[in-house]
């Protein structure tokens, strides 16, 4: 298109509007386009109720972990320990159940496992708030410590025998035909959405993420929020790992969370380029996780080799961050 001086301003305005529209709705449009494309390409397999529930089920662990991650990213903290935390969450629960089959039932094991994860999250937060170490480095370090500790305690052995059915039901059971992991993810998402959008704590988390100093001078106890946010993130990561263990029916001492680390960050950052560009939020994270899930599922029902999933996800992440970044630049 040629731009003559007369139409220059109109064209520039159009570009800005298009860019901001794309930054807001681009991910949703891509999601819809992909859904339509896969539905047409594999109309026999893809657009069935079973497959769509299957996609939801496939992203439930990712979604749960990404929701937790959203809470700490809102206040500007990167939690890199979620991979190790997921492994710990799954292993700790199964270990308690296998080792003390008579005295510990499933609810106790689940609660204990999540409490352990949350406690480590609190430690992460205390390191960040009171030792002044950046969350990025602190959680990298504690992640390494957790990985080592779990490997040491387990002797690198996977727990398979003696896991009660009640535990496996967490990952494999259904309520009214909907898999439990989906319900768990949606419940966690709803609670954290309420927390971030409608409570004072959530508003303070956003405020601290916006400007820690302005928040401090407004009387917010800034240092108390890092332990809180990182504990929530850790508990969600632990819950994700626990769901993975329940799906598998095994307590693996390594590698459970690693597959989710990049995807969880991708989902949250894709979410930050959706609807409210530049802001982390739960609904956005859900859309980010769905987008990843649809791509992975769609590519595999199309028979595309698995390695393409990694490549497509990487490209997608760059595109999402680019579109969010473009808008942020234009706004300033």
């Amino acid at each position, binding site marked *: 298109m040629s731009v003559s001086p007369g139409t220059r301003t109109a064209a520039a305005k159009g570009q800005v509007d298009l860019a901001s529209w794309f930054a807001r709705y681009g991910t949703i449009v891509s999601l819809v386009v992909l859904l339509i494309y896969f539905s047409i390409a594999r109309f026999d397999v893809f657009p069935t109720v079973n497959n769509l529930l299957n996609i939801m089920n496939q992203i439930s662990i990712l979604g749960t972990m990404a929701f937790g991650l959203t809470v700490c990213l809102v206040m500007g903290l990167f939690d890199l320990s979620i991979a190790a935390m997921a492994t710990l969450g799954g292993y700790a629960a199964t270990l308690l159940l296998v080792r003390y089959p008579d005295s510990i039932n499933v609810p106790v094991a689940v609660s204990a496992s999540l409490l352990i994860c949350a406690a480590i999250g609190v430690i992460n937060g205390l390191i960040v708030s009171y030792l002044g170490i950046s969350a990025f480095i602190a959680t990298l370090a504690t992640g390494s410590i957790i990985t080592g500790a779990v490997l040491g305690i387990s002797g690198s052995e996977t727990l398979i025998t003696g896991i009660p059915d009640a535990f496996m039901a967490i990952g494999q059971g259904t309520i009214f035909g909907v898999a439990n992991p989906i319900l768990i993810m949606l419940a966690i998402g709803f609670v954290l959405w309420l927390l971030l959008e*409608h409570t004072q704590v959530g508003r303070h988390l956003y405020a601290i993420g916006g*400007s820690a100093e*302005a928040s401090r001078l407004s*009387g917010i*106890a800034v240092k108390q929020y890092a332990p809180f946010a990182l504990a929530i993130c850790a508990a969600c990561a632990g819950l994700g790992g626990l769901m993975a263990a329940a799906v598998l029916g095994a307590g693996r001492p390594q590698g459970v969370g690693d597959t989710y680390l990049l995807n969880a960050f991708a989902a949250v950052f894709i979410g930050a380029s959706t609807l409210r560009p*530049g802001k982390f939020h739960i609904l956005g994270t859900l859309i980010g996780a769905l987008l990843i899930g649809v791509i992975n599922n769609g590519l595999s029902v199309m028979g595309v080799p698995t390695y393409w999933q990694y490549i497509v996800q990487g490209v997608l992440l760059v595109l999402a961050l680019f579109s969010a970044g473009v808008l942020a630049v234009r706004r300033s």
Partner: protein
Amino acid sequence: MPNTGVPPAPKGSAGAARARAGDPETFLEVERLVKQFPGTLALDHVDLKIRCGEIHALLGENGAGKSTLIRAICGASQPTEGRILVNGVEAILASPHEAAALGIAVVHQHFNLVPQISVAENLLLSESMPKRAGIFVDWRAMQRRARLLLERVGLQIDPRMEVANLRPDESAMVAIAKAIGSEARLIILDEPTSALLPAEVSVLFRHMRRLAADGHSFLYVSHRLSEVFEIADRVTVLRDGRNAGSWTRDHLSRRAIIQAIVGGDKSLQEDIGHSDFAPGEVLLAAHELSGGHVAKLSFEARAHEIVGFAGLPGSGAEEALDLMFGRHMTSAGRLTLDGRDVVFRSPRDAKRAGLALVPKDRHAESLLPGASVRENISLPNLSRFVTDPVVRFIHRGRERAEARQVAERLAIKTASIESPITSLSGGNQQKAILGRWLASGAKVFMLNSPTAAVDIGAKAEIYTLIRQIAEIGAAVIFTSTEVEEFPRICHRVLVFRDGQIVGELIGKDATDASILHLASGGGDER
């Protein structure tokens, strides 16, 4: 479009005979420049002429078009209409690179230097560094080149020093040296003195005059009128994107320039009425309070009173506010509020007791940049909208109603309280910050430079607002880096030097001159 091809008729008599097109005395000429943004006409047929060796001040409120004009001159954006001539030849400045090649350089407010590396490295950042064997940096050659550049601006510092360790005036001169190193003929200075002490400003001005005598031109943007009167050979004022007047040095008039800046309908409110003021009971009192750089601070602030804490930067006037608000640790002494002893271990304690601090750096310390006007206003007040004591849900409707009320009461100009705070002008942003604390019901307001980077019209509104805060019964403690503000709004001024109060000036005794006299080491008048 103006008729191109015909050079403007030479105006001076001296260069009329020269063969070169245009006036040889003129380095840069801006003709009928128009810049159209979506929805706004940022520049409306603006003219500007900068002569060789001239220090030309560009004035105007925020939003008057100064930065748009500068961006056009330095090639950062393209005008919609009109033309720019450099040395009498029409120049297409498609990028800052092309502007630099024609000898136009910009020195921004923060001097575009990298603080962590040496002066020499900064100076040679944009040129290719001298090398040995084509790979390794030749440090000695680099020092030599840097020394040469520093000599040309008359600055005597070691080029190996880190820029972070320089005084602000030295940084400014290094930035200018860098511009000259790239053979700049016109140096655009965008608020160069905002971080400088008065003594440093005069050093900078001395250097500028010398460079101007060598034929370098300066386009000088500042909010500080007194400096403009001191340095400018010529003044151009923009208002609403149009030329609002131009004066040569001999014809400068403060009143005329202020009129041109603010426009005919708005007149500057001058002094506070010192007469009808009845102080109430003592609200905040310090008794030999010490901490950090502040030593043995004793004073009382009463209801309805506006107390000024004046002093040069580093005198302790600003630090005293931070100390009382719990930002710094108190090492000795007492603070009382309503006659009771109070100890603030953090800003949180101070806020809960009913103190408010508006810090100096709006962007770094008080705004929530990504948030809406509403969220910025309700930041310290969220607990009042909580519906239950456990989950602490926020009642969004009550929050909105209050934010709307504050925005109306303070006449904050915004499309909606849900608009991003960054879409507001500086003055309206600051009103939202003051509104935040008004809504909190604070009893003591501590304001550090509340009119910094706010245009003149909005300044008057903020002064009025501060007076209203005092009238409704709060005590206001005010400090600023601009001395002329104290006489205009304070009932009483305490002057700080070296962390201590060295004098007290009441009512009409507090003048720019008397404050500066005390602050810079004159006799003790307390």
